């Protein structure tokens, strides 16, 4: 594991930013599909929305990167804080009966990790442009956090996952 602080060029930074968003989009799409398959339409819809946000951001990064030659990094070579990208979330936090509130909490945690990742870069990168860009990105992620938290309040506090009264299916 390497440190975000070491991100030193704009190209490197943008590669990270793009991967962060792209991975987030892929993950949300996957989760939305899974929820869809398991008939939790509400949460599926939320995840799709999150994916849509991610796509927009990825497009922004792409615009910023236009013309520059971004480095190609292997998934494990990125300088995330943890082993995984900040905005992917943990598979284990997903449940097919999760409520919209829980889905939003999952998303908030993701956004917070992104915010913190950018924050670290913003305060420590040796490169000023990078620091500045990261600062903006961090700000943006912080806004997402606030937005999502507002949604959560609106949705109420229903966080208890209901029992599936039916037994699991045996499929074979």
């Amino acid at each position, binding site marked *: 594991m390497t440190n975000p602080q070491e991100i030193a060029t704009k190209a490197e930074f943008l590669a990270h930013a793009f991967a962060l968003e792209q991975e987030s989009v892929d993950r949300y799409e996957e989760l939305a599909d899974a929820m869809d398959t398991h008939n939790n339409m509400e949460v599926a819809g939320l995840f799709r929305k999150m994916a849509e946000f991610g796509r927009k951001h990825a497009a922004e990064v792409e615009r910023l*990167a236009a013309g520059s030659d971004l480095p*190609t990094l292997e998934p494990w070579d990125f300088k995330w804080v943890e082993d995984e990208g900040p905005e992917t979330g943990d598979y*284990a936090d997903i449940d097919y009966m999760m409520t919209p509130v829980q889905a939003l909490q999952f998303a908030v945690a993701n956004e917070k990790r992104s915010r913190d990742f950018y924050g670290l870069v913003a305060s420590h990168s040796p490169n000023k442009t990078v620091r500045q860009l990261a600062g903006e990105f961090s700000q943006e992620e912080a806004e997402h956090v606030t937005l999502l938290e507002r949604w959560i309040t609106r949705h109420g506090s229903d966080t208890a996952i209901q029992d599936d009264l039916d037994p699991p299916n045996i499929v074979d």
Partner: protein
Amino acid sequence: MNPLPGKSQPKDYKSDVKPVWCPGCGDFGVLNAITKALASLRLPPEQVALISGIGCSSRVPAYTNVYGFHGIHGRALALGAGLKAARPDLHVVVAGGDGDGFSIGGNHFLHACRRNMDMTYIVMDNEVYGMTKGQASPTTAPDWTESELTPSGTHARPFQPAAIALAAGATFIARAFSGKPNLLAQMMVLAMQHPGFAFIQVLSPCPTFRPEQKEWKNIVRPFAVDALPTSDPALAALHCQRDDGMSTGVIYVEARPVWRRSNMQEIAIEDIEQEFRL
């Protein structure tokens, strides 16, 4: 964005078939890692074959964009071996569950390790039979009493995949966690690049029948041993025996000649027919 031409984004290796897996299932992480590894290796999808048996985990081939064979329970390694022997040009990856690979398929596992064909074997180990509703698998702890089939536990020592792979002769042995797809992908790349039989045991939680496995993310950690990976089987055996099964990393790598078909001088069938003449 991606400067390389052709298919090299992870999602290019995904199919449009939606997994039936329970949301939260560790197998999603494995699928994720497989696509990342294939993308990293820039392998054209048509040159990869993903072979599996039966079980939740064994559903994985259809969710990828490579050639797949969803075979029968326990026989994936045999099917993969036949394919690799007949088509050495293909990259053969075999995947499945702990029940599929270590219970009904245990014999093929032993002999695949011995044979050391150039292929990769990924076992999604959730210490349970997910697909058939939560019975104990060979890797289940003997005192697990949640299955009605073994109401007082299995009374059998858990199967130790890495130790057995080692004793049987696998030349690349690793353990990983599905909750870290990036690390898993990296390990898969090493495994696929390894010339010979590469085995990865992936701890892959089943939240449906083993909800306590959600805790795994807090328990797994890298092997705290500098010596690993090693090419000394005795040392590897030592660390396998001492570990609680929750340490991850590449354990053993050996350079042993890879199985290859014998190349004899080619002749025509007409020549063979000569032997029957009086």
